[in-house]
């Protein structure tokens, strides 16, 4: 068991380190002249060479690549990714400033997505009408097929411009959170619902359900009492995918609704080629992803006794 934990922690640390190195190579080594990236492309020709040299010295671009790398890695280890080119503020401060806004959006969207996914899976399993099942089972693949920017614009059009129920833009108060929340929940719910529909279906036709039927249980009793618990657990295995969908979705959602947050900051950072900020964001995302997968890997054996037995057995494969 201890070996299993050590292995998983080691992998998580490796992923974070490698994500840092990958972004360093992509953003600081590959561009022919990284100093150019630090200036506004429109003004690049008006920058005097002395200023360029000074900026290069400030960012350490005149030092050998290996020294730059070690210097940046050392600082990154204590949470220092340098200063944002655009605002001049430390990258970490800039990220922490907008993080709460995205966390609220993402957490709310996740809860809503889980609700939608469970309702879809329960209805698909509980219904006796084939056409209802077919219809409900088609919803998840529609949810992942409609581009987030389109559903955002549609929702904006209907609930804000036509009905006037919610404000269209900005980020003040709960009312402005509703529409982005729904927009982001749709693509996140899709894959979860697909997985749940499948696992509810499998569990519903398993042996212990037959036993319950034989003992005289009703359809509702079986679904809630037997199937629900066993079929929900696999949803944890796509926590990583769900996280990725939340991040990608928030980039588009925050852009459509002009909300403050990590997604919009990422887009701005890419647009203005704010290299230190981009690296900070990518590493933050990789850290979160590694952490989420680590937590899932560690709690899954606690929730699934079968897996715990395999791990406890001597000489069990630890992967």
């Amino acid at each position, binding site marked *: 068991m201890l070996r299993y934990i050590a292995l998983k922690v080691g992998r998580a640390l490796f992923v974070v380190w*490698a994500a840092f190195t990958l972004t360093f190579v*992509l953003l600081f080594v590959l561009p022919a002249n990284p100093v150019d990236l630090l200036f506004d492309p429109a003004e690049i020709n008006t920058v005097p060479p002395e200023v360029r040299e000074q900026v290069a010295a400030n960012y350490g671009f005149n030092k050998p690549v290996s020294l730059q790398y070690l210097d940046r890695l050392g600082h990154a280890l204590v949470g220092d990714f340098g200063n944002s080119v655009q605002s001049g503020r430390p990258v970490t401060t800039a990220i922490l400033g907008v993080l709460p806004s995205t966390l609220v959006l993402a957490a709310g969207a996740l809860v809503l997505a889980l609700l939608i996914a469970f309702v879809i899976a329960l209805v698909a399993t509980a219904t006796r009408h084939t056409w209802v099942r077919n219809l409900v089972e088609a919803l998840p*693949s529609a949810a992942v097929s409609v581009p987030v920017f389109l559903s955002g*614009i549609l929702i904006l059009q209907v609930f804000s411009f036509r009905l006037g129920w919610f404000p269209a833009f900005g980020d003040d108060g709960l009312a402005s959170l509703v529409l982005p929340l729904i927009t982001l929940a749709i693509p996140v719910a899709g894959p979860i619902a697909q997985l749940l529909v499948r696992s509810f279906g499998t569990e519903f036709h398993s042996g212990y359900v037959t036993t319950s039927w034989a003992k005289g249980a009703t359809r509702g009793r079986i679904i809630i009492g037997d199937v629900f618990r066993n079929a929900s657990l696999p949803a944890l295995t796509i926590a990583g995918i769900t996280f990725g969908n939340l991040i990608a979705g928030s980039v588009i959602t925050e852009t459509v609704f002009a909300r403050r947050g990590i997604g919009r900051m990422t887009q701005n950072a890419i647009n203005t*080629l704010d290299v230190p900020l981009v690296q900070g964001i990518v590493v933050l995302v990789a850290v979160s992803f590694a952490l989420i997968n680590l937590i899932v890997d560690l709690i899954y054996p606690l929730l699934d006794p079968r897996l715990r037995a395999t791990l406890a057995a001597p000489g069990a494969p630890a992967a």
Partner: protein
Amino acid sequence: MTTELDTLAPPRPSATIRSATATGRRVTARAALRRVGELAQQPTLVIAWAIVLVVIGWAIAPSLFTSYGPYDGDPAASFAPPSAEHWFGTDRLGRDLFARSVYGARTTLTATLLAILIAFGVGTLIGLIAGFAKGTVDTAIMRVIDVFLAIPGLLLAMVVVSVLGYSTHNIALAVGISSIASFARVMRAEVFTVLTQDYVKAAYGLGVSRLGVLARHVVPNSLSSVIALAALEVGAAVLAVASLGFLGYGAPPPQPEWGLLVAEGRDYVAVHPWTSILPGAALAVVVIAAHRISTSFRKGQRR
């Protein structure tokens, strides 16, 4: 020789496809006929194929589908609502939005095709090497793949595009690179499964070399899953390409591109909703159709 060994293999999930490729053309033809028969019983699948074929037609010969040009503006007819004359209405400059969607298919679909080819080619090769070499090579490759999986595709694609510069080709490259990891993983898992099959052991027993086994058995038998994944990824790749176009990383404005069309209409959506919603709906319909077709592939494979 190989055909006999293949039929010795125990029935696997994709046994139908496999035996069809092994026992010759006559069976494949009959299977194809049967598939057409099955197709007729699935109306949604027929519609999905029809949509995809029409859109491929848009990309190949756009002028057959619309009499307007993608850049022909008529300032007098700006923001005309959808009508028999302008199916999707017109935009700020009076350009026909249906024509722009039709011409935009080429940009978006070419980028998608390119992205899938990159991901399929590189991903399959990496997965094959990892699965066949096993041991340290496999572990090293898979740890690198883990890193690519840890960064969400859109974010990775944005970073790659920012380094390469904004253009539709770079979007294709970026989307392709960000999808390599999933292809590599599926291919590796398939190679592992194939290597445990009896016909592989039999081939080794008959003295076939490692490379011979790789070329004759491992590659052909593990590809079907990866091809099914490619079909599934088409929809996701169209979405990724359009999303990056929407964010403004693709073709510059006068060009028609699906994501960009939606972005251009966004400013007027409050008053003239069709400008953004109709091109976007066309895009969504194509992705839904692509998903429908890819699920039929996966089901066919499971049988």
